[in-house]
């Protein structure tokens, strides 16, 4: 390993340099994984009927994405090119199994609600995408920030959709009745309001995501593709 000795000493980059901050902020808007890159849509449709599910899914994805990014980044110089996708898959799959086991042990009700979707984190394109596109070529700290930023960008959309769907669909937020009691006809229900069952169905989430994309592109013209 003689060739490593000639590396010149660079000034140490501050932990939250402009470049690093950009890694966390970009995925929230300009590079949002759901609304701009249109990744991870399946889980956004499936689990957003209740805001609480969206929060737990966000935390789970955040853990898998950050840990996966760091692990792959640490191993990036040792991973043989030919099996790099398999290595990434193994890392993600084992982290997902870990999340699933922990949820089953300590948040049993949530784990029953999320059931197959936790397993499906493996197929969430955001995760493999970040591992392949970022962690494989960057140091652990920027990878951690990148994972955090993307998970927050993903989670923000999930939680916004979840909040709207739960309020409109069940009249609740985090399980607390907001609009009165549907059975007793109190509050808004007394005035003739009814829960919109359509909102509970998965296709409606697509419409919510569409509306968010519309609003975002109306505000930020640079996101509109030129034809």
């Amino acid at each position, binding site marked *: 390993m003689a060739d490593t000795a000639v590396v010149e000493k660079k000034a140490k980059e501050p932990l939250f340099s402009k470049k690093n901050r950009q890694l966390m902020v970009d995925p929230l808007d300009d590079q949002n994984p759901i609304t701009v890159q249109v990744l991870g849509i399946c889980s956004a449709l499936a689990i957003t009927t209740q805001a609480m599910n969206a929060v737990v899914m966000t935390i789970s994805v955040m853990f898998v994405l950050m840990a996966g990014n760091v692990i792959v980044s640490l191993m990036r110089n*040792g*991973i*043989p*090119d*030919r*099996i790099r996708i*398999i*290595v990434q898959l*193994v*890392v993600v799959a*084992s982290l997902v*199994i*870990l999340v699933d*086991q*922990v949820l*089953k*042990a*300590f948040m*049993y*009700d949530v784990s029953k609600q999320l059931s197959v979707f936790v397993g499906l984190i493996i197929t969430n394109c955001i995760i493999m995408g970040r591992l392949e596109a970022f962690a494989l070529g960057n140091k652990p700290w920027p990878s951690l920030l990148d994972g955090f930023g993307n998970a927050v960008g993903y989670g923000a959309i999930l939680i916004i959709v979840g909040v709207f769907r739960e309020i409109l669909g069940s009249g609740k937020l985090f399980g607390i009745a907001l609009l009165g009691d549907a059975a007793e006809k109190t509050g808004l229900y007394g005035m003739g309001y009814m829960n919109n069952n359509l909102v509970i169905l998965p296709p409606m989430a697509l419409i919510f995501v569409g509306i968010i994309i519309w609003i975002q592109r109306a505000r930020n013209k640079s996101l509109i593709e030129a034809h």
Partner: protein
Amino acid sequence: MDKNSNGYTFGFAIVMVIVVGSLLSLAAVSLKPFQQENIQKEKKQNILASINVVTSRSEADALFSEYVKKQVVINNQGEVVSEEDGSAFGIDVKKEYKEWKAGAREESKLNFPLFVCNKDGEDYYVVPMVGTGLWGPIWGFVSLKGDLNTIFGANFDHKTETPGLGAEIKESIFEEQFSGDQIYANGEVAFVIMKGGGGSDNPNGVDGITGGTITSKGVEEMLQRTFEVYKPYFEKIKS
């Protein structure tokens, strides 16, 4: 070292599999007790739900010992195998059913648990059961009133039935139909789940689920098969 040589690639893969495998098995083993506890508490909640006692997970243990007075295990001849405390709760009917279906366990070796509950001075008999739906296993608890014939409450669950169709068996709109119906007529199991008109005027039937016929028939088969086994025991304790 050449990172792209076959030897290096194989070595890397082997080391990675060993490391990941041992980490995951460590996690699985250490979390097992917590998961088991959750499953047990859910079972207690379901048993209590069949006698219309709704509990939270944290209260399940206390309420279970408050309401469940006696546990009995019988065999497929209706003879009592065990009456010890906790004996019936420890039996995993799902596992036994699976083994029986696969031919790994003889029918005479199956155990049939029964929970005798006391609520507001009345005795209720909770019968656990397991069957097959359209896509996978279904199971449930049905409670009978003191006459050992009239259904007091029912609680069903499933693993993989279609949401909106077969999965409706766990919704109260289906479960509530069972209350007040009768299992036996003239000493035979007469309970059916039928298409239309089963409802209020038929004491031995309930309406099936629209679009969930196979799951409904699965519930029917499960009830008929299970209550056939309990019939001799019920007749014995009635006389």
